[in-house]
């Protein structure tokens, strides 16, 4: 999984049917210092929103497993909202 933060949302009415029932979040991908190395548009399954620090899964088979289906063009999913990040006994959030 990748670590990052939600920075926005995407509104889309024309899309593949798989995405009809899911919010799409624009997520920055970050390292533990907060430096941004890129972004992804991820499907939300945990009701995350802009400002949340999140865990982003970026692998297709696992993503489909989370949505309970064995096929579908989905790869990036926000799978958790981070409460705390501790590195070397120091809380970084």
């Amino acid at each position, binding site marked *: 999984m990748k670590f990052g933060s939600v920075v926005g949302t995407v509104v889309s009415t024309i*899309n*593949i049917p798989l995405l009809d029932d899911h919010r799409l979040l*624009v997520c920055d991908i970050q390292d533990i210092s907060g430096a941004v190395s890129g972004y992804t548009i991820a499907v939300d399954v945990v009701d995350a929103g802009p400002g949340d620090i999140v865990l982003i899964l970026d692998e*297709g088979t696992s993503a489909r497993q989370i949505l309970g289906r064995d096929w579908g*063009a989905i790869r990036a999913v926000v799978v958790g909202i981070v409460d705390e990040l501790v590195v070397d006994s120091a809380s970084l959030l």
Partner: protein
Amino acid sequence: MQLARVLGSVVATEKASGLDGIRFLMIQPLDKYQRPAGGTVVAADAVAMAGQGELVYFVSSREAAEALPERFVPVDHAVVGIVDQIHLGEEE
């Protein structure tokens, strides 16, 4: 998934089997501020209605083929949606 701008369409008569009937688009991947990021790629159009100039999002790698009616096809990028709006920031 990443954002992209549709630059145009690509027509190829001779194709690998499995690609018949699929529209192909030339797209320019964008960063989250909709600035060009990286080189252009050719993507299958899984929504079948994306047109030139539109802001879209696409999926890459193995999952691209999953967007198409026939799922075992040699496709590595697929446009899976057309963007109406992007909200950046916490104003929502």
